């Protein structure tokens, strides 16, 4: 059933001789990824740094990251899943229909060459970005790449890692896993965690109008989400915590100004490879931290009459 085969970034720095970026543009979105973690660093087993590595960029358009790549493969939009599925077949030596394969925008030669390089690598890594996970196929595209990486371990050492954006989004996953058992999209309405992306994921909830209040922190959906979702946020009581007055604050009933994470608020954040790092704020904020505000809201709700404990009707309903 595939899986998730990953590593911390230092493993890439020390060992990777084949680095593939898929649907991501680190040169512009993660500017130090090449220089601090992956491409140009010398590693314990990569004595010559960049010279000892091959970099492949797979994307639908030639981004500035292509300049750094040895090989650029341009895939037709929304054909990533097909490309990855073909690669899965090729690494195992299974037949592929060349005509259908060509619809991906890559020739059989290119596909076979990539499959061969992956199998021959001593330590390969696949980094994938939003260009993969936000296009047609979405979570299945990520699943496909993770499965490809897992299967390559029958031939050599291979790992895959998402290029997470947005500061501490990784920490959100990590903490939700230990507190609720699931990484995101968790409903606690019945008193215990239930997980179902599509049902409990924010955009779906908002577009269906399935929630009747919202607390937004560490995000500005009012600036980024589809309009029907924003419209629903404006309809219901929305509460925002942010160091600035944001788009979302403007449609909210309640806004709190808070200290900026890592600049004037201390704490912990996780890197994209799930390494926890301490923050060292340089400024003192006149505003309270997010942590303090959320905690005070908690206390204010806890002071109200408790809801009757949820009834378990049978085993978990999902």
């Amino acid at each position, binding site marked *: *059933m595939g899986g998730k085969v990953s590593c911390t970034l230092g493993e890439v720095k020390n060992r990777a001789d084949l680095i593939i970026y898929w649907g991501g543009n680190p040169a512009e979105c993660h500017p130090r990824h090449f220089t601090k973690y992956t491409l140009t660093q010398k590693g314990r087993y990569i004595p010559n740094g960049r010279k000892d590595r091959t970099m492949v960029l797979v994307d639908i358009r030639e981004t500035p990251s292509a300049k750094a790549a040895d090989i650029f493969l341009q895939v037709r939009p929304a054909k990533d*899943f*097909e490309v990855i*599925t*073909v690669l*899965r*077949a090729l690494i*195992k030596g*299974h*037949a*592929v*229909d*060349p*005509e*259908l*394969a060509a*619809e*991906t925008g890559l020739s059989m030669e290119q596909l076979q060459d990539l499959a061969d390089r992956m199998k021959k690598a001593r330590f390969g890594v696949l980094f994938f970005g939003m260009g993969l996970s936000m296009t*047609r*196929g979405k979570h*299945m595209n990520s699943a496909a790449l993770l499965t490809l990486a897992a299967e390559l371990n029958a031939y050599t050492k291979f790992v895959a890692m998402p290029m997470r954006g947005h500061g501490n989004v990784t920490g959100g996953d990590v903490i939700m896993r230990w507190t609720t058992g699931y990484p995101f999209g968790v409903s606690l*309405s*019945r008193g215990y965690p239930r*997980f*179902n*992306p*599509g*049902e409990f994921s924010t955009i779906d909830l908002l577009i269906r109008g*399935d*929630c*009747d209040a919202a607390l937004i922190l560490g995000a500005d959906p009012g600036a980024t989400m589809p309009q029907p979702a924003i419209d629903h946020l404006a309809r219901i009581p929305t509460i925002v915590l942010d160091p600035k007055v944001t788009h979302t604050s403007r449609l909210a009933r309640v806004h709190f100004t808070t200290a900026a994470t890592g600049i004037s608020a201390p704490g912990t954040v996780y890197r994209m490879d799930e390494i926890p790092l301490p923050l060292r704020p340089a400024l003192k904020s006149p505003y309270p931290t997010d942590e303090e505000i959320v905690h005070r809201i908690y206390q204010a709700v806890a002071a109200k009459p408790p*809801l*009757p404990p*949820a*009834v378990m*009707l*049978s085993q978990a*309903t*999902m």
Partner: protein
Amino acid sequence: MSKTIFTLKERPHVPLETEVLSPDVIASLKHAEVEALPVFLGKRQYRLADFFAIEGDGSEELEIHGDVGRVKWIGRAMTRGRITIHGDAGMHLGAHMKGGTIEVQGNASDWIGAEMKGGLIRVAGSAGGQVGAAYRGSTSGMSGGTILVGGSAGLELGMRMRRGTIVVQGVVRDFAGLQMKGGTIVLLSGAEVRTGAWMVRGTIVSFTPLRLLPTFSYACTCNPIFLRLYARHLQTLGVSFPSAPEAGFYRRYTGDGAVPGKGEILIWHPQQ
């Protein structure tokens, strides 16, 4: 035969969870007991009667009126009896069901018949995503029973299904039969893309040309006897498709070579 009739008073402003709307729960209860059954509006617990006008004592036959498109888990894990919904149905309709019949006269939402083991779900209109699918992380989706959809259906239809039948009259979206392990999917109007992706076993039959993944290989043309028997069986459920040898034949593809799998996709070619 006695019936219990439920009429939704008002469409709830957030989803209502009513796994108690199942013949197994209701059949042996008196009217007042049915009224008192717990339901959940988000985090708050109410009585079933707070949302539905209820007629009759409990029975094996439930008739539901009104727009229950925001009412989740109707018929969850039911083993017997019948539920008729005169309107749209909400998520997880008939999930985990083992027997009995659910009929929806309108459209149904996502996850209908998810991980079901037996019984029949018939939706006159369209269905949402993940029809008969496996919930996230589960190794198997539906392992028995039949789902008939009169309109179209959404993403990941029959995902990881192991046994059973799904028939869809309208067009199905991406990833029909994703990681399928067995069972049969019949697509009368075809599907968008990635049909049968990563399938291991099982059969997908389409009466409209499909755009296949490059990892499926053409095997042969045929008109298998089992499909003719199948057609006859489905006819008893009101589904008909051409099957006679003189009417045409199927082009048979096997895959998904990426897994590698031994599934089959049969695409109908009518005789000119």
